[in-house]
């Protein structure tokens, strides 16, 4: 009998607002550095005069939403809502 794996987030889709000045590439790369993250997909869904609305999909093993939020905030972006979450056995 193997050790029971823990349940963690493997995929999350976020609705994010960021200033236009902040580069998409920098934000994506910073999110990619977060522990447990394997891939980051960002799609711009709306462009306003000073801001952009993004659909951010992060996949990986045991993703920490808190860490993602921290990185977002450091890059002047805010999570407006969590639109989808997938969890699974990780570790």
């Amino acid at each position, binding site marked *: 009998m193997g050790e029971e794996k823990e349940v963690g987030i493997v995929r999350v889709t976020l609705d994010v*607002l960021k*200033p236009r*000045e*902040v*580069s998409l590439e*920098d934000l994506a790369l910073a999110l990619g550095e977060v522990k447990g993250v394997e891939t980051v997909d960002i799609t711009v869904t709306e462009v*306003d005069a*000073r*801001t952009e609305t993004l659909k951010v999909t992060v996949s990986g093993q045991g993703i920490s939403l808190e860490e993602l939020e921290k990185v977002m*905030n*450091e*890059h*002047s972006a*805010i999570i407006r809502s969590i639109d989808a979450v997938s969890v699974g056995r990780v570790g």
Partner: protein
Amino acid sequence: MRILEALEEAWEELEEYVEVTNVGEILRRYFAMNAFDGALTMLGFVMGSYVSGLEDARIVLAAGLSMSLAMGVSGFVGAFITEKAERERSVRELERIMLTRLDGTVIDRASKIATLLAAIVDACAPAVAALISASPFVLVLLRVLEFKVAVYLSIGISLTFLFLLGAYLGRVAGNSSLVYGLYMLAAGLATSVLIGLIGGW
């Protein structure tokens, strides 16, 4: 190796800030405007000293250095306060739109760095331009040049500097460097002629 890595990291961060704030364009503008001010002011001062019969290199240098320092301080304080006000306004506006505080985030940090960069460029550009124009008078003090020769040399350096500044702006504009250079040169020559006329009168 660690120092190199830290420097590389700091440089990358600075590049990100410059990109976020789009400060490169503003720095270019500040540099050109204020270097122009510095060179033309020094040209005017040297011409004015000469036509009014002043023949003491120490006075020209002392006054020139004081003028450079004053222009530097004025540039730093003026640009710092102006940029700070404008950038803070922009961040507050963004905060209103995003319904959040941006203190300590990349936008906030980048704005502060941009303000400092603008102030440094605004301080150095006129001071350096003026010092370059005043440099021949050091050679007079070292008894390498005669005062009159230093005056001509200083005027020549100022006019060349103005031309090169114009040429640089021409390149920035993606236009003719020669035409832009001649615009700047014309401003320098017009100043010289005006001061010459005042001296004659």
